[in-house]
C-alpha cells in the first residue's frame, strides 16, 4: 500500500507534540550542520510555546537566533541562504504572520527551481502555528494552508500528532523544496508514542487512522482529533466511521482518500480552515473527478464563512466540533432522522484545559 501505516508507532515513549517538534529539529541539526533555525522569539524563555525549547542552549546563537520584526525580509534571507546550500527553518508563532511573507514565498521560493530551470533549489522549512480559543480572534486563528497548496513549487504538511510532527519535521528539513509546516496550538498538549531515534514520515502520504465501513471522515490537523472523537460518538449509535488523516496537503494523497471513500460510499471532509476554495474543495473535486468516486455521497465542513470572532459564544459556533461532525455524518447516513450528541460529553479534554492568553 502506498499510504502511511495505520498505527504509526507503539514504540518509544509518550512525547508531547511540542517536544516532538523540538526533538525532530534537534536531531536534524545534529546530523546536518547546514540546518539552522531562526525567527521571532525562538530563543527566549517561552521558546515558541515550548517548541524550540533547549535548541539555543544546545546549538548556540549562530544556529538558533531571534530576529527583528521583519518577516518579509527574513523570508528572503531564508530563501537566499537556502539557495546558498543551507537548510533554514524559519519559525512563526502564528500562521497569520505568513501573510507578510507571501511575496518571497510565492514569487521566489515556490518558483526559483522552475524559473531557473533547475539551476537553484530552495530547501527550507517554514514553521507556523494555527491558533484557537481564548479570544485569539481575527488575526491569530487562521488556517491558511490552502493559499499555499494553490502554488506549484510549495509543499504543505499539517501533522495531527506527535509521531507525525517529529517524522515530518525530519522529512521536511531533508526535502529539497520549500515546505510550509502547519502546526496547531491546541495539539501542542497532546502526546503520542514517539521513537527516540530519528525517522522520517514520507511527505505526500495520508494515513487511515481508524478503520470503519459506513462513512469516511477526512480530517486536517486538529480536526483529525475531532473526527476521531466523532467516530466514537457515531459508534454509540451503530455507525462505523473510518478516519483518514491527510497529513500532507501538497502533495495530496487522494488515492488513500479515494480507496476509503469508494469502500464506504460516503465522504465527509473536515478542514481546519474555511471551505471556500480550500483543501476540502480540492479533496472532494478529486474524488468527484475519479471513476471510483462516482456515486460517493460527499459533504464538507470547516470554519464558518466569517472572520473568527473573539466572543466565546460565537467562537463555539465558528468551529466544527466532534458533536457537529458526528451529527453531519449521521444525517448523511440516515437522512430525515435528527440526532445530535451531547456537545458537552463530546468535548476533547485537551481543548477544555487550554487557558490563554496565547
Amino acid at each position, binding site marked *: 500500500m502506498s499510504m502511511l501505516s495505520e498505527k504509526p508507532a507503539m514504540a518509544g515513549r509518550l512525547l508531547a507534540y511540542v517536544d516532538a517538534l523540538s526533538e525532530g529539529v534537534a536531531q536534524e541539526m545534529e546530523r546536518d550542520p547546514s540546518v539552522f533555525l531562526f525567527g521571532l522569539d525562538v530563543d527566549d524563555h517561552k521558546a515558541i510555546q515550548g517548541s524550540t525549547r533547549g535548541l539555543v542552549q544546545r546549538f548556540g546563537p549562530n544556529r538558533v537566533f531571534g530576529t527583528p*520584526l521583519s518577516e518579509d525580509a527574513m523570508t528572503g534571507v531564508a530563501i537566499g541562504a537556502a539557495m546558498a546550500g543551507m537548510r533554514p527553518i524559519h519559525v512563526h508563532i502564528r500562521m497569520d504572520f505568513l501573510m507578510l511573507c507571501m511575496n518571497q514565498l510565492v514569487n521566489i521560493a515556490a518558483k526559483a527551481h522552475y524559473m531557473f530551470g533547475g539551476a537553484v533549489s530552495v530547501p527550507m522549512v517554514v514553521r507556523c502555528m494555527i491558533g484557537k480559543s481564548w479570544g*485569539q480572534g481575527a488575526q491569530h486563528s487562521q488556517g491558511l494552508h490552502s493559499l499555499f497548496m494553490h502554488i506549484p513549487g510549495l509543499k504543505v504538511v499539517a501533522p495531527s500528532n506527535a509521531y507525525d510532527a517529529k517524522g515530518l519535521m525530519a522529512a521536511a528539513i531533508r526535502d529539497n523544496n520549500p515546505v510550509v509546516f502547519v502546526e496547531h496550538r491546541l495539539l501542542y498538549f497532546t502526546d503520542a508514542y514517539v521513537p527516540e531515534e530519528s525517522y522520517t514520515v514520507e511527505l505526500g502520504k495520508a494515513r487511515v487512522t481508524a478503520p470503519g465501513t459506513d462513512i469516511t471522515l477526512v480530517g486536517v490537523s486538529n480536526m483529525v482529533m475531532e473526527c476521531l472523537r466523532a467516530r466514537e460518538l457515531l459508534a454509540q449509535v451503530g455507525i462505523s466511521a473510518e478516519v483518514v488523516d491527510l497529513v500532507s496537503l501538497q502533495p495530496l494523497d487522494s488515492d488513500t482518500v479515494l480507496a476509503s471513500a469508494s469502500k464506504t460510499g460516503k465522504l465527509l471532509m473536515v478542514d481546519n480552515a474555511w471551505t471556500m476554495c480550500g483543501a476540502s474543495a480540492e479533496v472532494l473535486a478529486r474524488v468527484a473527478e475519479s471513476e471510483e468516486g462516482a456515486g460517493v455521497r460527499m459533504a464538507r465542513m470547516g470554519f464558518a464563512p*466569517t*472572520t473568527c470572532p473573539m*466572543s466565546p459564544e460565537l467562537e463555539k459556533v465558528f468551529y466544527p466540533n466532534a458533536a457537529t461532525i458526528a451529527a453531519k455524518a449521521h444525517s448523511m447516513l440516515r437522512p430525515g432522522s435528527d440526532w445530535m450528541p451531547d456537545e458537552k460529553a463530546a468535548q476533547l479534554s485537551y481543548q477544555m484545559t487550554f487557558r490563554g492568553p496565547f
Partner: protein
Amino acid sequence: MKDTSDTRRLFRQLLRIRLIEERVAAIYPSDKIKSPIHLSIGQEAISVAVCDVLQPQDIIAVSYRGHAGYLAKGGDLKGMIAEMYGKPAGCAFGKGGSMHLVSAEAGVMGASAVVGTHIPLAAGQALAAKLRGEDKVIVCFFGDGATEEGCFAETLNFAALHKLPLFFVCENNGYAIHSPLKKRWANLDICARVRAYGVPAVRTETSDVTVMRAAAEAAVAAIRDGEGPQFLEAVTYRWLEHVGPNEDYAAGYRSRDEMEPWENEDPVARLAAVMDAAWVEKTRAEIAAEIDEAVEFAEQSPIHQQEDLYRHVYAQ
C-alpha cells in the same frame, strides 16, 4: 510641577487609565475576560500627553497595546470593558476583544494585532484628510518593535514625500516581547534613522507627562502649520509582562532593577504628591465608581445570539 488646572486634567487622565488597567488585571484571573490583554501600565503618560494636545476631530491609530490610547482619546469605558468580555455591547460588538479596540465617535481607528500594520493605515487617514482639505492631525502610536517592519520605513518615506499631517509616536519600551533592543537594532538612534527620511524627530526619556506634552504640542503645531510628518520617540517602560496581568521579572530576561527608576518617577505618584490631597481622594473615588459601573455594565449586558456570527462579514 504644581497643582494647576492643567496638571489636574493630566493627572486625572493618568490616574483613570492606571486604575482601569489595574482593574482589568484584577478581573483577569477570573477568566471572565477570555482575550489576550496587553496592558499599558507604566506607559500611560505618552497617550495622555499626546491626546491632551489633540482636537476632537483628530484621529489616533493604536496597536493591540491600545487601552491607554483609546481611553486618552475619549473612547467609551463601558464599550471597552464589554469588548473584553466579548459582549455585543462592546466597542467592536464583542468580535474583536482587547486587541481590537475601535471608536469612530472618539476618533480611534480600529487596532490591529499584526505588528506595524496600522502605520500605513494612519498614513492613509492622513492622506484622506489632506485630499479633503480637513484640519485634522493623525497620530500613530506603535512600539519599538513595529519600526522593524518594512512598512514603517515605506510609510516614513511616503508621509515625508506627501507632507502628510501624521504624527508618528514610537513608544520605545526597550522590548519586543522578551527581546531587548540591542538584539534587534544595529543603530540605537532611531531618531537619526527617521531624520534621514526627511521627518523631524524628537526623543523624550522621562515619565514626566508635562515634558512629553510639550514635545507633542510642538510637533502637532508643526503638523497643523503644514510642515508635514513629525516623529516622537518616547522612551518608556512596560511594568508588567508582555501579555497578561502579572509581573515577569522572575522570568530572567530583564531585572526589576531596570524598572525601579521608572517606578520611582511614576507620574501618577509624583503628581499625586503635589496635588491637593482631598481633591486626589475625591478624584480617585469618582474614577472607582465609574469603573464599578462599567464593569457591572459589561457583566450584566447580554451575550451574543448565534446568528450574530454571520453579521458584519460584508458591509451593507
